[in-house]
């Protein structure tokens, strides 16, 4: 069987997701300006411990091998260890993303004692100035302290997870060196205009020249650097990057949000891409297998405006979320189309881009603390 027919089978969807992201909470100690889930304040409707464990039991029955846990900051939940222990006890590996604020010495040792657990520490600059401009004052030192604690606890190879922006593209080699210095693995992913990123994407996303730099850098580093297959829009530049060259939204991936709402992918928190809830009758399984949204995402897609472009097979028209939140039609070029078709459309567009549906950002303080001089 050829790889092409495997991809076409994946596009028609599987009975269970391969890769499932679960944002455990909207609560976060940080307020990153590109946060994909507009996190900050806890939502009082978030799933209870019992509801979360019931979801895990369902995923076990579906033979989901591992889950990607995020937030918000997932370690803020008091039942965090309870939930991830229940998961690994049921043979569902856990990979969780954290800003590191709660990985003190004791928690690092506790995490190091667990099997089937991967940790991704988020870092968006190899120096405090670059990182903190996006992730907030002090967040660089916090992340490094967490890495030190994990190293001291002999956790083993954790991951450093970077969202590539125009301000850190030039640091890719430095990120790799930092990861190597901890025996860690580097993971770089594409910035999407999701959540608060919808407002900051235009100022943060890599320039056209930088996209070529990213592509060349990834080709040079091959499978040693993880990407979540998120840069497949760059495949139009030539030799394909390692990984699955397709948008998996609703086909092989999906997102469960802190309230239990199921979305097509982590980057489309909008009513239009909400398939249902794990609390609906039939649970997650019914949403995954029968929801109208996921069924439609598994039908053959139209190349639309990209049909006449010779690169469509290589880039698949790019990322659905990137198009949606920049106001571009879904059956057209990605805003970061390497041939420039997306940029042309964006500059000519008068359409208003849709706004993310949920916003848990903390309110801006109107009364500032007095500044000592």
């Amino acid at each position: 069987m050829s790889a092409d027919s495997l991809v076409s089978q994946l596009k028609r969807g599987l009975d269970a997701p391969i890769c499932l992201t679960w944002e455990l909470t909207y609560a976060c100690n940080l307020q990153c300006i590109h946060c994909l889930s507009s996190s900050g304040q806890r939502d009082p409707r978030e799933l209870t411990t019992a509801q979360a464990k019931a979801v895990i039991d369902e995923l076990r029955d579906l033979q989901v091998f591992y889950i990607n846990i995020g937030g918000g900051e997932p370690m803020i939940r008091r039942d965090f260890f309870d939930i991830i222990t229940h998961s690994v006890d049921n043979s569902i590996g856990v990979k969780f993303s954290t800003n590191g604020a709660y990985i003190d010495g004791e928690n690092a040792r506790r995490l190091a004692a667990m099997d089937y657990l991967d940790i991704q520490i988020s870092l968006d600059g190899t120096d405090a100035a670059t990182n903190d401009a996006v992730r907030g004052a002090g967040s660089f030192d916090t992340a490094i302290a967490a890495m030190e604690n994990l190293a001291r606890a002999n956790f083993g190879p954790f991951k450093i997870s970077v969202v590539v922006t125009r301000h850190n593209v030039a640091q890719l080699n430095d990120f790799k060196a930092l990861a190597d210095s901890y025996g860690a693995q580097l993971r770089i992913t594409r910035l999407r205009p999701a959540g608060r990123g919808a407002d900051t994407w235009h100022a943060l996303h890599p320039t056209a020249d930088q996209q070529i730099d990213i592509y060349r850098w990834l080709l040079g580093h091959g499978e040693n650097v993880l990407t979540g297959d998120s840069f497949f829009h760059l495949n139009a530049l030539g030799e394909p990057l390692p990984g699955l060259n397709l948008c998996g939204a609703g086909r092989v991936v999906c997102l469960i949000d802190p309230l239990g709402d199921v979305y097509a992918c982590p980057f489309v928190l909008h009513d239009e891409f909400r398939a249902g809830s794990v609390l609906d009758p039939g649970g997650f399984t019914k949403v995954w297998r029968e929801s109208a949204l996921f069924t439609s995402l598994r039908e053959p897609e139209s190349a639309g405006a990209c049909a006449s472009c010779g690169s469509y097979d290589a880039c698949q028209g790019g990322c659905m979320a990137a198009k949606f939140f920049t106001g571009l039609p879904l059956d057209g070029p990605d805003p970061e189309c390497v041939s420039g078709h997306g940029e042309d459309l964006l500059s000519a567009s008068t359409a208003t881009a849709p706004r993310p549906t949920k916003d848990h950002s903390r309110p801006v303080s109107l009364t500032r603390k007095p500044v000592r001089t």
Partner: protein
Amino acid sequence: MTITLESSCSLSPQVALRPEPFGALAYHYGNRRLVFLKHPDVVAVVKNLANHPTVGATLDACGIAAERRASFLAALDNLTKSEIIHVG
């Protein structure tokens, strides 16, 4: 190529298989690799490796025709690289 018809192989105890229309997904809980087994016959062979003394005997037992043996050896060789199956 390290795998021959005389090799003795088995599925790693750390691997779980999930049946799929195209064959199966194989996940290695140790190295976290996810591998696509792209044909039901490959799945049958992988599952039966431990039941036979050699790869050749497994291929025979699974009814794999002689002209397909080379491609199965190549596929099994790849699966040793991702540690989905073990030699010996």
